[in-house]
């Protein structure tokens, strides 16, 4: 883990309000898939908190870190205007990340909206698994990175809320239709928080581990300030954990929804 400077190498629009940014640092680190980077917003001194983004790709040799982000507010708007050569400060790698072991042969990736970005890095870390991927988007226009996921996935299913591309409906609908066929050893998931409740309910009928990457507003990003708490149930008792340090990846079973 380090706090270090990054130079913007590339910052391009992928579609609509989704951008991809490649950053370079003199201080590259090893990253586990699902870990994140907390970056400052240059040119906005009034925004004093860093912003967390999943590390989508990183190359220690090339000293690069890639993130994809959606413009949702002041910080991401400001990021989207950055030009190559500009410098920002970042802390990484943070969080626990997704961990797979030998028993996980068939992996189902379940990603909704900006939740697809943390999932993208899984294949880089574990290239020798069999991946089935279900990605959900609002509509055809907001579909991104489907080509990239397709490359490493044995099967890629796309769904859109309005049916303008792939199956109509949510990723949980698609999961229900396909899970018995795919028979995953593990499911890794990231998407809008509203989907975790139905997902948990549905998966309670299966003995398949489901790991989800949560989002919460953060400050320090390293586990010290306790602002990013989420409720988990351990040994039947509910208490708070830190999304930034104990997560962002949690066993869905533990997550109190």
């Amino acid at each position, binding site marked *: 883990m380090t706090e270090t400077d990054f130079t913007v190498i590339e910052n391009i629009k992928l579609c609509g309000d989704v951008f991809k940014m490649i950053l370079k640092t003199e201080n590259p680190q090893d990253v586990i898939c699902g870990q994140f980077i907390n970056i*400052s917003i240059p040119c906005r*001194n009034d925004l004093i*908190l860093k912003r967390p983004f999943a590390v989508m790709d990183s190359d220690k040799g090339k000293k690069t870190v890639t993130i994809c982000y959606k413009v949702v507010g002041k910080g991401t708007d400001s990021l989207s205007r950055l030009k190559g050569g500009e410098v920002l400060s970042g802390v990484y790698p943070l969080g626990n990340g997704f961990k797979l072991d030998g028993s996980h042969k068939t992996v189902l990736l379940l990603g909704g909206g900006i939740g697809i970005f943390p999932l993208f890095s899984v294949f880089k870390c574990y290239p020798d698994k069999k991946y089935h991927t279900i990605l959900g988007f609002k509509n055809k226009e907001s579909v991104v990175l489907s080509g990239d996921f397709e490359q490493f996935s044995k099967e890629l299913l796309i769904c859109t809320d309005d049916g303008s591309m792939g199956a109509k409906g949510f990723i949980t609908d698609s999961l229900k239709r396909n899970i018995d066929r795919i028979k995953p050893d593990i499911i890794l998931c990231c998407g809008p928080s509203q989907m975790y409740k139905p997902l948990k309910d549905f998966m309670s009928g299966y003995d398949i581990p489901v790991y989800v990457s949560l989002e919460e*507003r953060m*400050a320090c990003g390293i586990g010290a300030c306790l602002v990013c708490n989420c*409720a988990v149930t351990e040994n039947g008792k509910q208490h*708070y954990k830190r999304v930034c340090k104990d997560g962002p990846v949690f066993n869905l079973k533990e997550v109190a929804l």
Partner: protein
Amino acid sequence: MADLKVKLCGVTFKNPIIAASGTFGFGREYAEFYNISELGGISTKGLTLKRREGNPPPRIAETTSGIINSVGLQNPGVDAFIENDLNWLKQHNTVIIANIAGDTEEDYCKMAEKVSAAGVDMIELNISCPNVKKGGLAFGSDAVSIKSITAAVKQSISGGIPLIVKLSPNVTSISAAAEAAQAGGADCISLINTIGAMAVDIKSKRPVLANVFGGLSGPCVKPVALKMVYECSRAVTIPIIGIGGITCAQDVIEFMLCGATAVQVGTANLSSICASKKIIDDLNAYCDDNKIKITDIIGGLIV
């Protein structure tokens, strides 16, 4: 290397930079980024008698040049701290300040007993937390209760460990609060804690924080904190630790000119993990450049 040493109630700090309570945990996380022995001191996350889960999320809102938090004193409880964290902290060459908060006067006194027996360097009485329903701010709002709780806690401390009373800015007269703390036997005051505040999300039409209200901190509060520190420095004779919106060495100098002997850095640690370390380095350079020792600055405001 300039002389950055300051002495506060007999305790020597290698420099006047103390990590502020609640923004530094018990130091473990920051220790992965730099050697926390470089700090003058560390004020622990606010401790309570029993383990506390704190408030539900969201607990943080960002505002213009500031943040509002409503953590609500989540902590493992004073006993767990002593058992699991204090010895680890003591391995570091830095002043350890136990920040304690109670629901009742009895709570405060019990904790003071426990932490002084366990051997911290100083105790900071948090009677100014705006994020808990009982206790906290209630004790810090009027002079009479400030004086009485200070006196009671002071009695419970063994081994002559100095007592810092941390004041709330949410009062009509900060100097009256400072005087009350002094009258109650405080060895030192620290200020400011966070300012009561609120943020609203117009899309959901809801408060951003689940707790509705929270405490404002960060650069936006510095002008308020500076004034309060200066007022207190004219009202009391005990030393003052300045807190509020410090992000750089220049800010530290401002507080020290206004009468602070040391300062605490809070929100800046969240904006930049290495902020406190950089502030120390820059203070060093400032004193070297100006050929002064840090204590020359204290109270040096020309009015």
